[in-house]
């Protein structure tokens, strides 16, 4: 019996380390199992997360796709449904009401008529007493306070398989508060004539130099260069007519233009213009009438362009305009112009920036002025039917003479960062010599020497708006120096016409 106990005791004692050994192994196994379990759960969680994310993205894509097809189906249904007041509007669209805009061009590919509106407004002032006389351009800011320079409605599109049409209707509010309307341009242009020809017909800007054929909202400065104002007129040289152009088959780009236009009116200031009864170049003018073919305005131009490097482009042109003027019989005007445009835009450009442009135009006008006497009725005595231009109580007369004037402007624009452009322009205009009429009536400010320096800074928040600050230092001989400062705003609605070079 005792032996039995002892045996049991011994067995128990000997089993003790064995039990401990088993326990340790179990723990180890448990640990391993836990590790495997953890890793498995982690992997599972990761897979689940990935599955969820992918499902979410798949759902989003599917939803987007079905939304698009639904949208397209709805659009198709809507397009096919009869036009009735009760027609179901598209989601996000109400039935049309009279207050809604009229859409002439459907979205996407349809393009029957591009409609755009550009508004150009300036604010500022000048030390000049008569700002209207200082600022030569018809769309320049002309008064202290605000000037609505140009409200321009542009319509353009393909007319049919043969023509492209464009119209620019301008509204302006003059200093008296009157709204003035101008049919600035309205022309058609052939699309694909043979022999590289192109015809433009209607009312259009004469292709003379670089600036004349462009609209004010595309200019780099608030106002028009002085040579353009003096020789081509405040509203630019433009008239009804026809223009032929030929793309010359040279290895580089070059184009030859010839325009034949009416030579009368205020938009042909150096030609048959009656200047509304006011004296011009010491004479009263009469616009007369067209008696022969050469009483029309003829304007030839040749322009060529060269790529100086990958980043530099040069464009040079020579223009002329010939036609009769209103100072008397056999009185003709000739205007000659040279223009030069250089642009640098590096191979790495972002939103069209940075860039540097340099634009220069030279012009010369030879104005054959007819003989003029204040004794309009020719009776030798000053009476009511005569014109005493200077009010001296004498009958003055001036001989037939050739008036030669010339001038230049040169401007640099530096787009240094997207949306920011700094500009500098220098203007110079002068007469070749004092004319006989100036000996009678005194120095004519329309011919006297003048120069101007204009630095400016423009910010384009987008391609559709701009804010510009410009300072002008003006020096007019026999008048003196003037300072002007202008702040200009622009906005553009609708189709943004692509830029020509």
């Amino acid at each position: 019996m005792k032996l039995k106990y002892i045996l049991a005791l011994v067995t128990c004692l000997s089993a003790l380390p064995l039990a401990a050994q088993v326990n340790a192994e179990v723990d180890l196994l448990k640990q391993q199992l836990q590790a495997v379990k953890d890793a498995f759960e982690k992997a599972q969680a990761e897979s689940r997360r990935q599955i969820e994310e992918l499902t979410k993205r798949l759902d989003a894509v599917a939803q987007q796709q079905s939304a698009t097809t639904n949208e397209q189906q709805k659009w198709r249904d809507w397009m096919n449904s009869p036009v009735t007041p009760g027609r179901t509007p598209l989601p996000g669209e109400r039935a049309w009401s009279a207050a809604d805009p009229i859409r002439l061009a459907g979205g996407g590919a349809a393009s029957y008529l591009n409609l755009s509106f550009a508004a150009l407004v300036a604010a500022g002032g000048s030390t000049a007493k008569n700002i209207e006389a200082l600022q030569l351009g018809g769309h320049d800011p002309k008064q202290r306070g605000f000037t609505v320079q140009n409200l321009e409605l542009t319509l353009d599109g393909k007319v049919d398989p043969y023509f492209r049409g464009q119209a620019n209707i301008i509204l302006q509010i003059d200093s008296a508060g009157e709204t003035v309307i101008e049919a600035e341009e309205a022309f058609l242009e052939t699309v694909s004539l043979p022999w590289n020809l192109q015809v433009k017909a209607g009312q259009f800007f004469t292709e003379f130099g670089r600036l004349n054929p462009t609209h004010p909202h595309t200019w780099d400065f608030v106002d028009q260069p002085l040579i353009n104002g003096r020789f081509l007129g405040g509203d630019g040289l433009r008239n009804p007519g026809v223009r032929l152009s030929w793309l010359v088959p040279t290895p580089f780009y070059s184009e030859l233009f010839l325009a034949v236009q009416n030579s009368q009116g205020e938009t042909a200031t150096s030609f048959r213009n009656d200047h509304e009864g006011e004296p011009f170049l010491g004479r009263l003018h009469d616009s007369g009438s067209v008696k022969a073919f050469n009483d029309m305005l003829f304007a030839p131009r040749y322009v060529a362009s060269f790529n100086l490097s990958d980043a530099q482009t040069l464009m040079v042109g020579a223009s002329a305009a010939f036609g009769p003027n209103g100072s008397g019989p056999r009185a003709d005007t000739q205007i000659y112009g040279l223009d030069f445009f250089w642009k640098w835009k590096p191979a790495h450009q972002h939103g069209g920036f940075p860039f540097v442009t340099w634009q220069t135009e030279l012009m010369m006008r030879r104005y054959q002025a007819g003989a003029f006497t204040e004794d309009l009725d020719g009776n030798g005595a000053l009476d009511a039917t005569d014109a005493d231009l200077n009010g001296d109580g004498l009958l003055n007369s001036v001989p037939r003479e050739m008036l030669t004037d010339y001038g230049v402007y040169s401007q640099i624009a530096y787009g240094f960062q997207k949306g920011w452009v700094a500009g500098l322009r220098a203007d110079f205009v002068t007469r070749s010599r004092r004319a006989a009429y100036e000996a009678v009536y005194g120095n004519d400010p329309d011919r006297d020497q003048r120069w101007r320096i204009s630095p400016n800074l423009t910010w384009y928040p987008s391609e559709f708006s701009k804010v510009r600050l410009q300072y002008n230092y003006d020096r007019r001989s026999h008048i003196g120096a003037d300072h002007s400062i202008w702040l200009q705003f622009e906005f553009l609605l609708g189709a943004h016409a692509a830029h020509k070079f």
Partner: protein
Amino acid sequence: MKTKLFLSLALGLTHAAVAAAKLNVVATLPDFGVIAQEVGGDNIKITTLARGTEDPHFVDARPSFIRVLNQADVLLEGGAELEVGWLPPLLTGARNAKILIDGPGRVVMSRGIRLLGLPTGPIDRSMGDVHPAGNPHYWLDPANGKIMAGQLAEVFSRLDAANADAYRANLKKFSDRLDQKIAGWTKALEPYRGVKVVTYHKSYEYFAERFGLFVVGQIEPKPGIEPSPTHITALIPRMKLEGVKLLLIEPNRPRRTPDYVAKATGARLLLLPDKVGAHEKVTDYIGLFDYDVAQIVAALKESK
């Protein structure tokens, strides 16, 4: 003497005829040009207008392009309003009936391609430069390269039937090579599927969709609008929260803001060519993706 003159004249004429037989193809973007070269081979002559480093929306309408377009048999344009800012006046100046809107040589490269980013609601310009026809940067999906090549083979065959077999063979070769390459690129980027990226402009949407990158946002607050401080200060915490790994910009973009954002978020700034020619090493269509995929893989390996 007379016969000699006639002979040389006749030779000159036949020479001109032979030269004219080569299709004169003008591409607005280098990417369209290189694909056309793959399909057209020696039977076409390619001239490209925009450079790979340029912003395709703001290319200068250089007058020399008028001359080039005047001589073109075929014009390859991107469509989806990509070139709306510069191509129309060039076409008016070029007076070439072959490449007018319904002309036999006018090719819109986006034809047949599913465009992303089609606006589904009303849009206006307060939303920035939104393209009503959809996102025009579609050539950055190599699968779209096959669609473009297919259309080109069709057009070239129609205009130059004598070489139709060559165009068909070139198309097959190019498509097969592209298929093989797409499989390779997909495999290379497989481990990084779902990686989050931010871009400058919505230029890489097609690339991201093809290779499984997740575009979280843009440096531009709205398409074509310059980054504003408000937008950037909101973007940075969002990028941190989302764990954005890469900031992808085209080589022509300004670096200052992207650099700042990359530093603030720890995302890696990568200059990723978006067009052929945007980097000197990227000279053809397949090379563009070879380069871009390698760049992304290298950057992600490093940031791991």
